[in-house]
């Protein structure tokens, strides 16, 4: 099931931000006191007119989750400067986190030529279950080589290359997302966020250029 994530200010049960990214939602709540992430199935927006008609970035929305997520208009007296500031900060941080996530995804997507996102784990198992020095290969690797008409040794090396590439990209992406997730959560205005994104862009892309 696919979810959208509402970031809830627990002090007044107001929605301060919405995102489609679970990692973004989790980083947002790490950086904002008294918040939590509420996953809401996507079908709420398809099925219910009141969900579809709301602008979660601009409308003032109260969320209760006692018997499934329900939204109502946030009472006027709860629309305070503190709430508005917190919402503005959450949205600015969300935009920065999403920018980073998108860029990191590019390198991942570029090397993914298979539809199964868990493929790396399967490859890892087959590689671990083989010993090319003894000419012993996992049955999966043997089958891979038969299908493609290549030797088991070539099949093993190709899968190892795919595994190592993806593994390295994924770990590096994790490190970068951690580093910049923390930095974004320490930024409190748009100019700090811009500096943070420039640093990220430099680390991720500029340094890679010849």
């Amino acid at each position, binding site marked *: 099931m696919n979810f959208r994530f509402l970031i809830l200010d627990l002090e007044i049960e107001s929605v301060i931000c919405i995102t489609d990214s679970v990692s973004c939602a989790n980083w947002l709540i790490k950086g904002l006191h008294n918040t939590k992430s509420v996953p809401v199935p996507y079908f709420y927006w398809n099925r219910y007119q009141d969900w579809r008609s709301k602008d979660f970035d601009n409308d003032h929305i109260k969320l209760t989750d006692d018997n499934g997520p329900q939204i109502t208009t946030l009472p006027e007296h709860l629309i305070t400067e503190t709430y508005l500031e917190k919402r503005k900060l959450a949205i600015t941080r969300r935009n920065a986190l999403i920018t980073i996530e998108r860029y*990191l995804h590019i*390198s991942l997507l*570029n*090397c993914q*030529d298979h539809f199964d996102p868990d493929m790396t784990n399967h490859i890892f198992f087959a590689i671990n279950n083989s010993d090319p020095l003894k000419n012993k290969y996992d049955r999966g690797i043997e089958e891979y080589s038969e299908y*493609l*008409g*290549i030797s088991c*040794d*070539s099949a093993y*090396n*190709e899968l*190892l*290359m*795919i595994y*190592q*590439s*993806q*593994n*390295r*990209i994924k770990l*590096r*992406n994790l*490190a*970068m997302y951690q580093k910049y997730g923390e930095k974004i959560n320490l930024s409190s205005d748009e100019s700090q966020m811009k500096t943070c994104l420039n640093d990220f862009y*430099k*680390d*991720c*892309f*500029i*340094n*890679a*250029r*010849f």
Partner: protein
Amino acid sequence: MRDFKIYQINLENLLDSNKPGTEHWKEFYKILVPHKNLVDRYGSVIMPFQPDLYEQFKFPLIDKNFKKTFEDLMLERANEILKKQEITQKPIYLFYSGGIDSTAIVVAFLKILSINEIKNKITIVLTQESIAEYPKFYYEIIRPNFKIISADNIEELINESNIVVSGSQGDKIFGTDHIGKIFKLGLEKNLFSKLDKKFITQYYIIRGLSENAADTWFNILREQINDINFDIKTNFEYLWWFNINYEWQSEFFLFILRSKLKLTEKFINENMYAFYGTTGFQNWSVHNQDKKILDRWTSYKFPAKNFIYTYTKDKDYHDYKVKLVSAGRLFQGKLMPLGLTESFDILTEIKEDEFYRQNNSFI
């Protein structure tokens, strides 16, 4: 002043400098990334901040009677590397991006070795992006015939136990990426016309330089061009000249710097082969200005594409493949040290006063 030499430096923090000569110099970094160093291989033009010229990268003497073809040079270089392997018995690791330069290198080895020899002698170092850049070549030629290894093992491969071959300096031999940008901007009409200050400065201005900075850069380079021992006649040749002369050293050391390993001069001189970095290729480049590009961007590097075609017979690739920046993903997100010293140690600190050159050409 420093009491040690440096061969590569990240200029990022120095681009804020207000020292004499930096005003127009630093504007060029609107075009270049800050780790790209400009080092005049003749040693006459001096940047306010630059590394020292690595002795072996001095611009070679140009042989007026040079006659070798591109194919001669490809085979000569591949044979030289194979001979080295025969003597040292070290494995060859060939960094393959899937681009034109590195594909031509693979073809050079294929033309010399039998299929049986290939597998024992050469390991192709690649990523999934290398496959994506030229899938047919991978699936039909590399996959069945070569050993492969992920380029993400770069740290384990660059060492004295191996012979490391890269496609470095291929871009410098053929021209420059600026040519592609000029085609994209629709400015190619006068690219091959007589060297014209207006054409070059207008291009610099489009790329973000001020009029004054564009003028300064052109004038400094124009003066130098008068003193070298071959002619730079066209706008294309000027842009090529800038690349082969000023960006040569940086390209070589950036590849090494990214491995973050402690390397030795012995390794760099004896184990590290920038395939296109020979005096022969540079001579070819000087003498064959008409063999770098025809009238379309897709014809860029056509001698290398012809060379590939003689082996693959892949007309589609020959006619339509364009040069892409190939090595990006491998280094994407990889932290890069500040620079390299003459003893090939990592530079840990950059102080403006230590690195500033008072005798720079921009004052």
